[in-house]
């Protein structure tokens, strides 16, 4: 394996990993704060990709404006789903999980009916290549990597330092105590759904020009998110970052050296984590 080739596989892994991070961090945020496994999260990602596809290919909107618009549209959708479907089952554990599955199935099924099962593609935004350490890398991928890092940094800073971000962490730690301090639990949940959905929308928009867009993306994404959050620790954002990057690198190097069997590696990692460190790499016991 030449060094340039290694760099190439490494950068691919980094990009793949960061997309997992984007998808899984929103998913983990919802679980951490609302104690809800939001199976519809993957469908939000799928819709984000389709929103970008429709905006760019059919309405001729500039890609970056389409990215922002997709985030806004999916965030609004997330809020609506929360208000009408998740909130009525808020404190019921199993029913909230089932309603999330129902919404995922509804969106996925409608997506299939409306968009059809054929792959769509968004024309590339940056067509050039750059040479880094002897490896030829497409500019498109580099931009995705940078955007993903930017979004994750913004999320981390927001949760750490902003007033509402602190409120989110308070609600995550102890809902009742937070409510007693005057934090609106419901408005925090709404905000959390908005942010998480916007991240899913952003992930969809970022990946749309790189991969094909089709209605099956949602299920695929939610499966990856589940693997990532179990490895990293349910509800932990640093866990989602570590787990996502780990899975990205494992899959990128696995695909290069092992082929098809790679798809199973993520699952094997999950089983190992559950056997030896069930709370995940960054979870609390």
């Amino acid at each position: 394996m030449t060094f340039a080739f290694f760099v190439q596989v490494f950068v691919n892994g980094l990009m793949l990993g960061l997309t997992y991070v984007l998808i899984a961090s929103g998913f983990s945020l919802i679980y951490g704060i609302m104690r809800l496994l939001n199976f519809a999260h993957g469908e939000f990602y799928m819709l984000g990709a389709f929103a970008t596809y429709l905006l760019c290919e059919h309405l001729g909107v500039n890609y970056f404006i389409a990215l922002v618009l997709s985030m806004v549209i999916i965030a609004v959708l997330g809020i609506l789903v929360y208000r009408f479907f998740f909130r009525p089952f808020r404190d019921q554990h199993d029913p909230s999980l089932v309603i999330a599955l129902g919404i995922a199935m509804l969106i996925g099924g409608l997506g299939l009916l409306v968009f059809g099962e054929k792959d769509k593609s968004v024309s590339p935004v940056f067509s050039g290549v750059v040479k880094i350490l002897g490896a030829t890398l497409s500019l498109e991928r580099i931009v995705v990597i940078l955007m993903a890092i930017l979004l994750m940094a913004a999320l981390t800073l927001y949760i750490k330092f902003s007033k509402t971000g602190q409120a989110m962490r308070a609600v995550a730690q102890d809902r009742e105590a937070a409510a007693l301090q005057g934090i609106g639990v419901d408005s925090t949940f709404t905000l959390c759904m908005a942010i998480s959905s916007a991240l899913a929308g952003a992930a969809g928009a970022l990946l749309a020009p790189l991969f094909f867009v089709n209605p099956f993306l949602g299920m695929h994404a939610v499966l990856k998110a589940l693997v990532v959050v179990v490895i990293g620790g349910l509800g932990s954002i640093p866990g989602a970052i570590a787990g996502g990057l780990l899975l990205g690198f494992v899959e990128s190097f696995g695909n290069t050296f092992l082929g098809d069997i790679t798809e199973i590696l993520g699952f094997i990692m999950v089983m190992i984590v559950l056997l030896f460190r069930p709370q995940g790499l960054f979870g609390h016991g």
Partner: protein
Amino acid sequence: MGRRGLKYLILTVALIAVPAFTQDPYLLNLLITTGIWTTSVWGVRLIMSTGQLTLGHAAYMAVGAYASTLLTMKVGLSFWLAFPLAGLISSFIALLIGYPTLRIKGVYFSIITFAFAEIIRLIIVHWPSLLGGYGGIPNIPAPSPILSVSFTSRIPFYYLILAISLITYLVMVRMEKSRIGKIFSSIHESDTLAESIGINIMKYKIVAFCIGCFFAGLSGSFYAHYFNFTSPEFFTIWQSIYCLIFVIVGGAGSVWGPPIGSLFMTLVPELLRVAREYEPVIYAIILILIMFLLPSGLITLPARLLGRKTH
């Protein structure tokens, strides 16, 4: 025999008499499909009775279908031997998955069953030499003749799945009324409390999971030999979620929930006469309506209606 017993007797006789009134292959096929679902979905309900939501039940149907296909086609076993073995193999796989995941409380079990279902599908897809890949395995033999009944029309298949469903029903009712059923429901109520009075909750959760998957395996095996064909398309994540939805739509609180849910969900797309692609959307809408309007399932609909009338 009380009134209850009489009702069950009438229902059983009615089900046995169905082919005397109609031999329409389309109708029989609907009933057989309902039976396949019911057997498997009873397993989901059993697992739910220990407070665990399985999101990958179709994977254990797949294990049963492929195990019995390979046992009959490659090993040369008779269906009558391969069928129970398929159930056992499914429960063995469930043991392997259940052991690491059921030790941990919380949502891990749901996550792992969901993810593992996809792994089973990927293994089938990526192992075409043994498992047929995307194309599936055709020409699976029908069960060999037994007691001079040969499986050439839908009627013997109807009676076979009816017998399987009845046995499954009896097992479910027996378990619910026995000590183990009471332990399951105590774990469901509060696993911490159950643990504190000395119940090994992990053991019982695994037992419920393995038995539930045993019936999924049986159901999958019947499926393969009935349609003479098996393919990863039959056992997707959607199918797994359907299994759970059928229980909830029928009503998880009653042993009659799974058959009612399975029958209702099999009939609705047929009555609406829509293409298969509409199925997920229709099922999702029914599920959401049930969750909001009738959270204990269709089984509580008569009581609801009567209750409204009298008050």
